[in-house]
């Protein structure tokens, strides 16, 4: 399967580049958010940097990754129900993962707004946990998309 992927048609390369570039930005944004929120220990500047990373880096990265995924999916001519396992794993990380990212953004946004009044720590902890779950899901999906099991 990976040999087939390695000799894919040239017209798949640009959508694949867009997809992988978006995924790199997404993973980088989530990794930074998890690291910043994990190390912050109440430091407002680092908490804001972590949230900024999720909002201004990870979210645009997710949009580019998802657009690239749809583009290459259309190029490959798959139809619903016939996707291989590795693609199903990729979708599972992309779409429910996108909803989870949105939940983390909402919780973190409220948490950051409440920082001034000394509250919001619980919500920001929730955002940290979501970031760690997303990172784990992305590692599994990167493994699946490259090793292509099934």
């Amino acid at each position, binding site marked *: *399967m*990976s*040999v087939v992927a*390695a*000799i894919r048609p*040239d017209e798949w*390369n640009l959508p*694949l*580049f867009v997809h*992988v*570039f978006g*995924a*790199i*930005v997404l*993973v*980088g*944004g989530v*990794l*930074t958010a998890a*690291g*910043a929120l994990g*190390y*912050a220990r109440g*430091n407002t*500047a*680092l908490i804001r*940097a972590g949230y*900024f*990373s999720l909002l201004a*880096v990870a979210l645009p*990265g997710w949009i580019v990754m998802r657009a690239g995924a749809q583009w290459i999916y259309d190029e490959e001519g798959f139809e619903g129900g016939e996707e291989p396992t590795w693609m199903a794993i990729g979708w599972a990380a992309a779409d429910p993962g996108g909803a989870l990212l949105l939940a983390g953004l909402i919780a973190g946004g409220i948490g950051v707004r409440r920082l001034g009044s000394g509250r919001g720590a619980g919500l920001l902890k929730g955002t940290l946990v979501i970031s760690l779950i997303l990172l784990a899901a992305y*590692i599994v999906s*990167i*493994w699946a*998309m*490259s*090793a*292509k*099991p099934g």
Partner: protein
Amino acid sequence: MGLDDWILALHVLSGFAMASTLVMYWVLIVAMRDIDSASDTLLYGRLATMGNRVVIAGSVGTLLFGLWLAISKPEYQPWDGWVIAALVLWGASGFTGSRAGTEYTKPFNRAQELVEAGREGAPGELRALNRSSAGLVMHTLSSVLILLLLAVMIWKPGA
């Protein structure tokens, strides 16, 4: 799944570790532009240290697993033009990345000195170090080289 499939997955995961950490460094560069206190600089330094470990592991993994694949897979050879181009880009991005790292380590070292001396330093001193233009140029170059490397890995020109 064969051994080569696992090696390919590890190669791609290593590449993601390397490139995603460059994204982290971009966030740190932007976030630290207005940081002027030693304690805050050191706090960001802990995140940068985590990033350094990830980027080193990713760089080494990308190279070793990539070389394995170039030798093991019958459709590739280590002397293929695109493999050599990828190796050159890997080396160049590593060089510019380490130069950027040298520049951005200066504020962390200075902040450590200040904290150990129980001082905060002259106003603007750490901010100037955190805004290193040499570091910014080197990190920009490193990021462009990694994008070119990604393009070479996908298009495999000449393969």
